């Protein structure tokens, strides 16, 4: 434990004229400017906000920032958490999802952490939230222009599979020289017949920088194009922040004669709400002979849909009262 100056702790502090000595206390060492320090102090928030502003001003550029030690380990969403904590105060409403699920362990704990340290309120409805922190999905509901989407990114570098050298990577981004990426996509297409990049599809933002969309499925990539909301991407382990401002061009890298495909399994529908127009995930069969079941990945959306279906059903059942939902 070091003191702010070189004086050992048990020597009295000389604050006034000699004779008015008093003991040095912990209060003298603590910075008085930080009132109600949560996890991030004001300096950390300043660093993060400056990085976020730079990222928003240069869409798709990966801004390095000083990634603090967080209560969640690296690789568990510390970057997204830092962005959220830098932005949120007690007037905000926060929604946290993990692969679309509000009730996953990690989502619940992150939400509890954010809300207890910043005083924000929590919700599971996209409608009510001001900040939505998400891991690997964009909510099916419409996200408005007054809401912010914070995505957790494992690997922010889209050219990671193509180039290893950091200096060469920064040169390629600086000069917009993405030839190696295009060549790798072409080789992929020729070797496999289709482009096999599944999640984290590289996209060109604002016609300038290529970003790695975090492992959101291809299904969600068209949502980013000219979105009304701001998307912030935070990578804590790699110490990078990048952003897609509202109403920005985000086009997936694909060739002119190869249209961008999204995931689709014909005949699959959610076994809980019957939806086919949402992103579904497969529950593997428990017995070898059973069929696989599909469920909506966005649980809040599925729940609302089921509630609405129930309300409609009860509305039509009690037709004597008239005037359903």
């Amino acid at each position: 434990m070091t003191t702010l100056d070189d004086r050992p702790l048990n020597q009295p502090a000389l604050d006034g004229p000699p004779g008015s000595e008093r003991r040095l206390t912990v209060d003298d060492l603590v910075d008085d400017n930080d009132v109600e320090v949560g996890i991030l102090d004001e300096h950390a928030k300043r660093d993060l906000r400056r990085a976020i502003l730079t990222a928003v001003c240069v869409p798709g550029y990966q801004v390095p920032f000083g990634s603090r030690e967080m209560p969640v380990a690296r690789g568990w969403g510390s970057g997204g958490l830092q962005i959220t904590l830098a932005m949120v105060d007690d007037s905000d409403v926060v929604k946290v999802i993990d692969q679309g699920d509000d009730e996953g362990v990690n989502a619940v704990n992150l939400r509890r952490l954010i809300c207890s340290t910043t005083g924000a309120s929590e919700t599971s409805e996209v409608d009510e939230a001001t900040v939505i922190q998400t891991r690997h999905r964009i909510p099916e509901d419409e996200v408005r222009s007054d809401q912010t989407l914070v995505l957790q990114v494992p690997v922010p570098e889209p050219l990671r599979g193509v180039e290893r050298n950091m200096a060469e990577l920064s040169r390629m981004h600086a000069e917009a020289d993405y030839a190696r990426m295009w060549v790798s996509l072409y080789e992929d297409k020729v070797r496999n017949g289709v482009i096999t990049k599944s999640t984290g599809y590289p996209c060109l933002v604002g016609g300038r920088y290529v970003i790695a969309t975090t492992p959101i499925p291809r299904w969600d990539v068209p949502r980013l194009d000219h979105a009304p909301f701001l998307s912030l991407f935070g990578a804590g382990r790699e110490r990078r922040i990048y952003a897609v401002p509202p109403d920005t061009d985000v086009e997936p890298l694909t060739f002119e004669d190869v249209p961008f495909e999204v995931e689709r399994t014909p005949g699959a529908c959610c076994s809980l709400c019957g939806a086919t127009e949402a992103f579904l995930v497969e529950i593997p069969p428990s017995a070898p002979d059973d069929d696989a079941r599909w469920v909506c990945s966005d649980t809040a959306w599925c729940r609302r849909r089921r509630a609405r279906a129930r309300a409609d059903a009860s509305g039509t059942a009690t037709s004597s009262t008239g005037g359903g939902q």
Partner: protein
Amino acid sequence: SELEQSILMTTDGLDATGFLEHLKLPHYVTFRSMVDRKLAVRAARSSQSTPDDDATTRNRTDGDDTANDPVPVDPREGDCA
């Protein structure tokens, strides 16, 4: 010594265990995406004799009848973090 301390901080700290531990997080969405790509590759290969426009170039379409085959997931492909 300083070298020992920095090695300990690098290998034992909270920072160090992130990348492997993230495999404990759910991956339903990423897995479905990868499986879909594998099926698309298989569809493209199976329709290689015929022009494969219908199977692969229609947007939001993926048709394959071999859905019962086990799909090996390529560990090199993508980052399922």
